[in-house]
């Protein structure tokens, strides 16, 4: 595996899931809020469909990021955590990303399911 490919896998693994969740969070909040307000209602958005779509895309990216981290982790499995960069650093961040992406995936799924299951626009 080339150095460039390993680096790309590690960085995508580290940031991909987080960015996917952040996007779903901001856009999903906007979709839900707009569907419940005077101005947004005039556009008549298919809120549930959009939320599911958003969740699926974000979830797919989070899974891809976890996989990338896993590949980077396996590729550097012989490297010690204290080893000098880049190998040591890549191994370190790959482990970190394995943790992060699991959390992001769980939040993404919880978000997508809840927005669909809950009654739309009911005041909490």
């Amino acid at each position, binding site marked *: 595996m080339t150095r460039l490919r390993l680096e790309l896998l590690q960085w995508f693994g580290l940031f991909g899931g987080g960015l996917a969740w952040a996007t779903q969070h901001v856009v999903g909040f*906007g979709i839900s*809020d*707009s569907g419940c*307000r*005077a*101005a*947004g209602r*005039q556009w008549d958005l298919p809120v549930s469909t959009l939320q599911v779509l958003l969740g699926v895309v974000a979830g797919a990216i989070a899974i891809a990021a976890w996989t990338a981290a896993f590949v980077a982790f396996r590729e550097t499995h012989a490297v010690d955590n204290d080893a000098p960069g880049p190998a040591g650093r890549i191994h370190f961040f790959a482990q970190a990303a394995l943790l992060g992406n699991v959390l992001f995936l769980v939040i993404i799924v919880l978000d997508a399911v809840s927005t669909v299951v809950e009654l739309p626009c009911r005041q909490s």
Partner: protein
Amino acid sequence: MTAATLPVRHARAKGWWGMAVFVATEATLFGTLVGTYIYLRFHNTHWPPARLPKPPVLTPSLLTAALVATSIPMFVASRAVGAGRREVAWRALTVAFAVQVFYLVWQLHDYVDAIHRYPPQESAWASVYVTLLGAAHAHVLVGVLLNAWFLVRIWSRLTRYRAVGVQATAFYWHAVNVITLVVLVVQLSPHL
């Protein structure tokens, strides 16, 4: 090993990174301003209020195009100082500076008009519009002052400190240009 004989890797100077972090915070500030515009948009059936004329399209678009184009001479200046070519850098900075000053003066004149046409004391839309544009122009002013400073400084001599300063300023300008584009889109959004 003394400083002269250390094995060095080419990398961006800490001054550049300082500007990158500063740009991150300012971009976030604009994010909150644009976010406020979008958030309040959902709360209002008419945005802008129906009685107000929509913002002009042509002048802001042409001016923004001119400003964004100054990223080219700024990029040239940034590369030139990195290679120690003081005169090339100075000329590129001058070209950029001239266009940026032209942009700022025209925009400030139009801004005073906008405040009269859209009094912020009468609607939230006008308040956000005026604040957003004001913030954008303030950031352009800071960029113009930075350029002016370096025009003076590298006229006589180019040191590493000044070279990093020019590179950081170029990065600032690229960021301001992106922000200006985003602000333009928001400004023209009533037409969409």
